[in-house]
C-alpha cells in the first residue's frame, strides 16, 4: 500500500466523522494559533524596540568622567579631559563619527528686541505651536553636529580652534534662526548671551521629516563651544557622547575607550563610566526573551494538551474500528499498512489544525500588531513553516501509540469485535 492510498483512506475516515474531526482539529489549532501569535508578536516587539533604539541612537556611547579634587571654596580643580578624549577618538576615526561634551546652558539669549526671557507660546487645538519658544542651548565640540545628525546649510560649523581660543561664536538650528531672525540671514550677526556678545557663524539644516513634522523644537537649538563655559559659567564638562559608525562596533569601542580613560585618569583624582543604550537594548531583549519563553511555554502546554487529545481520539478511533482493522488484516493488510493508515490520519488531523492555526495565527499577529505597535506584523516565514511542521509532527508523535496498538491487534480477535 502506498502513501497516496493511506492519505485517501485517512481523508475518508476524517470526512466520515466530521463533527468529531472538527473538535479534534480545534484542539490543535488553538495551540498552533497561540504559539504563532505569541512568537510573531514577540518578533514584532523586538523589531519595534530595535527601531525605537535606533531612533534614540543605539550607535551612541555615553561617557561620564568626574573629578573629586576640590579647593577650599568648593571649586572643582579637575582638569579638562576632553582634548585627550577628542584626540583619542579622532585616532579611531575609522570607527567613530564624532565626540562631543554633552551639556545644557541656562542663559538668556537675545537679538535686537527678541529675547528668550519674555517669549510666550501656546498650542492651538490641532497641536500647532503659536508664538516663539525659547531655544535649547547646548555646549558642544566641533563634532556636535556629527553626533546629532546636523549639517551646516549657511556659514560654517564650529571648529576646534573655537574651542582652543574660547571664541564667542555659536551656530543656530533651523528653528532658532527663524525665531530670532525670521527670513533674514543670521550669519555674521551678533547675539547677546547673558549680556556677552556671540557671533553667529552658521546655521544648521532642519532635522524635521514627515514623521516628526510637529516637533519643531528639535531644530530650536543653539550650540556654543564647550570652552565658553569659562565666560558663561558652569562646571567643567562631565558627560560626553561618542557616535560610532557601525552599531556592531559599540562593544569594542566601549572597551577601547574604557582602556584609554583608565590610563588617562588618576584614580585618586576621579573616575569614569562608559556605557551605551545598546546595553539597555540587550537587557530589554533579554527580558523579552524571558517573556517569550513564558508565553511560549504556556502555548506549548496547550499544544501538549491538544496532542494528548489527539492521542485519546485516535485510541477511541482504533477501538471503534477494531473490526475494520480485523477485516483489513484478514484481506491482507500488513501491520505496516495499518500503522501507516492511523499515523497518516493523526498527522492529517493535526496538519489541518496546523493550517487553520497558521491562518488564524497570521490574522492574530496582524490584528495584535496593529493594536499594540501600530505596525503590520506578518509572522516570519520560519514561524509559519515551524508551526506547520510542529502540528504534523505532533499528530505523528501522538498517533504512534494508537497506530501501533491498532497494528498489534490479532486478526482473529479483531474480527470478533462488535
Amino acid at each position, binding site marked *: 500500500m502506498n502513501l497516496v492510498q493511506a492519505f485517501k483512506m485517512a481523508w475518508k475516515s476524517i470526512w*466520515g466523522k466530521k463533527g468529531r474531526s472538527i473538535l479534534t482539529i480545534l484542539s490543535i489549532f488553538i495551540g498552533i494559533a497561540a504559539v504563532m501569535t505569541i512568537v510573531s508578536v514577540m518578533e514584532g516587539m523586538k523589531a519595534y524596540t530595535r527601531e525605537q533604539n535606533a531612533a534614540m541612537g543605539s550607535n551612541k556611547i555615553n561617557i561620564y568622567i568626574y573629578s573629586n579634587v576640590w579647593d577650599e571654596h568648593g571649586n572643582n580643580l579637575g582638569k579638562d579631559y576632553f582634548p585627550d578624549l577628542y584626540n583619542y577618538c579622532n585616532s579611531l576615526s575609522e570607527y567613530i563619527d564624532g565626540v562631543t561634551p554633552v551639556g545644557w546652558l541656562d542663559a538668556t539669549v537675545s537679538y535686537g528686541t527678541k529675547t528668550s526671557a519674555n517669549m510666550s507660546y501656546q498650542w492651538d487645538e490641532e497641536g500647532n505651536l503659536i508664538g516663539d519658544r525659547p531655544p535649547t542651548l547646548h555646549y558642544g565640540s566641533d563634532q556636535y553636529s556629527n553626533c546629532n545628525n546636523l549639517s551646516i546649510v549657511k556659514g560654517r560649523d564650529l571648529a576646534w580652534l573655537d574651542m582652543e581660543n574660547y571664541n564667542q561664536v555659536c551656530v543656530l538650528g533651523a528653528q532658532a534662526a527663524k525665531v530670532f531672525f525670521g527670513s533674514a540671514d543670521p550669519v555674521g550677526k551678533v547675539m547677546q548671551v547673558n549680556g556677552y556678545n556671540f557671533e553667529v557663524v552658521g546655521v544648521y539644516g532642519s532635522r524635521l521629516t514627515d514623521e516628526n513634522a510637529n516637533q519643531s523644537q528639535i531644530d530650536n537649538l543653539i550650540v556654543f563651544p564647550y570652552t565658553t563655559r569659562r565666560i558663561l559659567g558652569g562646571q567643567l564638562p562631565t558627560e560626553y557622547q561618542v557616535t560610532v559608525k557601525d552599531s556592531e562596533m559599540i562593544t569594542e569601542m566601549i572597551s577601547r575607550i574604557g582602556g584609554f580613560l583608565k590610563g588617562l585618569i588618576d584614580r585618586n583624582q576621579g573616575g569614569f563610566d562608559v556605557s551605551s543604550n545598546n546595553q539597555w537594548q540587550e537587557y530589554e531583549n533579554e527580558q523579552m526573551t524571558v517573556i517569550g519563553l513564558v508565553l511560549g511555554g504556556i502555548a506549548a502546554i496547550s499544544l501538549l494538551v491538544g496532542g494528548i487529545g489527539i492521542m485519546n481520539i485516535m485510541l477511541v478511533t482504533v477501538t471503534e474500528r477494531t473490526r475494520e482493522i480485523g*477485516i*483489513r488484516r484478514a484481506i*491482507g*493488510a*500488513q*501491520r505496516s499498512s495499518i500503522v501507516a493508515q492511523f499515523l497518516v490520519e493523526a498527522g492529517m488531523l493535526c496538519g489541518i489544525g496546523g493550517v487553520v492555526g497558521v491562518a488564524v495565527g497570521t490574522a492574530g499577529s496582524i490584528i495584535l500588531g496593529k493594536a499594540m505597535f501600530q505596525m503590520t506584523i506578518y509572522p516570519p516565514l520560519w514561524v509559519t513553516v515551524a508551526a506547520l511542521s510542529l502540528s504534523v509532527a505532533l499528530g505523528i508523535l501522538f498517533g504512534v501509540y494508537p497506530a501501533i496498538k491498532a497494528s498489534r491487534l490479532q486478526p*482473529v480477535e479483531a474480527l470478533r469485535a462488535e
Partner: protein
Amino acid sequence: MRMAGLIELRNVYKIYAEGLESEVRALDGVSVTIDRGEFVAVVGQSGSGKSTMMNVLGCLDIPTYGDYILNGTDVRELTDQELSRIRNKEIGFIFQQYNLIQNLSVLENVELPLIYQGIDPIDRREMAMDALDRVGLAERYRHKPTQMSGGQQQRVAIARAIATHPPIIMADEPTGALDSRTGLEVLGFLQQLNREGSTIILITHDNGIAATARRIIRLADGRIIEDRVQEVDWL
C-alpha cells in the same frame, strides 16, 4: 496414490488457557489434507472447533501445536508479513456478517485487497469491476453497503474475495444471515467458483448446506469424527 495436498494439517492443536483448569482444546489433534479443486464442508455444532479450524486454515491464527503446510510451506515459520501476503493473494474470505467496511463504497470495498497488493488504480478498478460484474452488482458500485440488502452485501463480499483470483475460498457460515433463497444463490456462486477450479472450504453448522459439498468433514469437540466424499448433482 495421492499427491501432496494443497492444504495439510498434521496433528494440529489449538489450546486456550493451556494447563489451567479452564483449558479449552478448540482443536484437539486434527490431521487433514485438502487437495486443489476440492469443495469441502466443515460441519459441526457451535463450539466444535470449526471456526478455529477456519482461522487456522485461513492463516488468521497459528496452531498451538502441530504443522500447517500450505502449498508446501510450513505456516508456523512464516512472519506476520508473509502471513498477510498469503491472506491477500492465496485466500479469499467470505464471512457470515459480510464484514464490509461501512464507510467505503461497494467498489472501494472490493478494491481493498488489490490496494494491499499495490496494484495501480486503473488496473485495480478494472479488476474490481470485473469481480462486481460476476456477482451482478456492477451497476451499484457507488452504493454504500448499508444501502443494500443482506444478500447483496454478501455478493459484494464474494466479489471482494474473488477480486484477487485466489486459489482458495474460505466461507464461514456464508448463508447464516440470509434467507434460504439468497442463501442458495450464494451457494450457487461457490459452486460456480469450484467448477472454475477454486478450492472451496465452507464452514457451516447446517447439515442441509453441508449436503451440497463433495466432501464433508464433521467436527466434534475439536476432533474429526467423520470425513467422507459424496456424489453431488451440481457438477
